[in-house]
Each structure stands twice: as C-alpha cells, then as structure tokens.
C-alpha cells in the first residue's frame, strides 16, 4: 500500500522520505510523584488504534521537521484534522 505524507514545509511526499515517530500521547507526564510503572506505561504502551490516529513523523530525507498527522491505520491514508475528529 503506497503511503504519502504531507510535510508542513515540503508538501505531499513519498512515505519513504519519512521516519515514524510514534503515536501522539499528549504532554509528558508530571515527574512529581510519578512511579516507574507510570513512566513505563507512558513510554511503551500504545493504543494501536484500528482507525484514525494522530501520530508523529520526521522528514528525514527532506527538511528535517517533526510534525503530526492523522492517519487511518486500516487504509494507510492521511486524514484531515477535521475529518479525524468526526
């Protein structure tokens, strides 16, 4: 399945130009009173959504930007943010 990703600087490009950066998990948890288990969960536990998820990508062969997109994991197609919220 061909994957294209839209870089905010370079535009739509071949997926092979990018590196996957993982699911978007929200802000880093507060370190105060944080247990090792909670940190481990934040780092390693993923939702692995079968559908639209927000995720990080890195344009390694291009401008070097880190950015977020919404992607439907079942079709491997990018989705607009508004469409993803539905």
């Amino acid at each position, binding site marked *: 399945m061909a994957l294209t990703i839209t870089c905010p600087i370079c535009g739509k490009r*071949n997926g092979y130009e990018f590196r996957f950066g993982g699911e978007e998990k929200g802000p880093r948890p507060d370190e105060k009173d944080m247990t090792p288990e909670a940190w481990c969960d934040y780092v390693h536990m993923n939702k692995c959504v079968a559908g639209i998820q927000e995720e990080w990508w890195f344009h390694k062969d291009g401008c070097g930007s880190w950015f977020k997109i919404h992607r439907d994991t079942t079709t491997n197609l990018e989705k607009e943010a508004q469409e993803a919220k539905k």
Partner: protein
Amino acid sequence: MKDIQRISPVVFKSTPSKVEKRDNWDVVMEYSGEGDGPYLVDLSHRPRFDLQSSKLAAIKPFGLKLPEIPGNCIFKKGILANRMNGIQVSVLNLDGQKDSSMPDEAEYTDVTDSTICVALIGKNIFSICEKLTALDFMDLQKKAPFLFQGPFSHVPCQIVTLSKDSDNSGLILTCSRGYGRDMINSILHAGEEFGLRPAGESRFTNWIKA
C-alpha cells in the same frame, strides 16, 4: 608552514585544460571537449554556510534580506539564500570573485568542506533529473529560484532551481561530501543520452551572468 590542501569530492574523467589555484582549491576553469551542453559543473569550492537562529528576521547575511517562507530563495549579487525551515537558512556564495570569508556571528557554520555542490545547466536538465528523483521541478506554482529538500538519486539533497527557461535552465545541488563520487556517477550516467558533459567553472560564471 605548508599550505593546507583542499580537494573537491567531485572528480570528472575529462581532462582539464585550464586550472586555477584559489583559496587552496584547484579550480578547473575549463575541460577539453565540453561539447554543446547540458553541462555538469563542480562548484564545491564555492563558500557555503549554514545559518541557524530563532531570530532569522533580524539577520542579514552579506546585506541580504532572508526569505521568510520555507522553500523560498533569494539570489542577489552572487549570494544565494535558501530558507530551509523556521530556524535555518543555507547561504551559498556563487560569486567566485567576492570575499568568501564567513560572517563572525556564532549562528554561522562553514559547510564548504563537508558538502558537495554541483550545477546542472543547459537544455534537458530536468529530463535528466526526472530519471533520478520524483521531485517536480516543473511545478507551475513554483517560481525560480526555489528550494527542494528531498532525495535525489536516493540521497537527501538541497536542490535550488535557478532558472526554468527551456534552453537555458539551471539548478544547484548540494549534499553530503561522502556521496560525491556516486552522485556524480549517477548524474553523468542519467545524462548520457542527453549529451551531459562535465564543464569548468567558466561555463557556470558565463551562464549566471547571462
């Protein structure tokens, strides 16, 4: 004390007919049998700087106002400035006669010796590029000069299209120095059917003046 020796990562098989010593580089001004074009010119000796700052709007390298939008370029008085992203600009001094020294500010890094720089000039150069990259140089929405950051012959490159004129087009390509030999080999191989030949610096200087 002995002078340092600066060796270009770009090596052509053609025989140089005119060579000039400049800033410890052996600069080939002309090759024998350059033909009618298109031409591949080694510009690795031309000074290049990487400029990184969170306040780019306040910086004017060589008196040049920097482009604000990533992907845009400005080419004035022999200086080419390419906006790469929000905080980074690459600056190329394409005027061989001007002072090549780097500005004193800490935001600049001299990348002349760590990258290669070549120019492709003449007709059919975009047909050659089409064989090596999926980047769309003929995009009607892009007005020269403009910057592409992407794979060229599978190598991450910065490519600036300087002119899209059919018979007189030109672009500048830079990438890491280590890819030099293979990059030149692949460009020359792709350009064989179009009559691409190595050319000396004089050819580029005359092209840019025209």
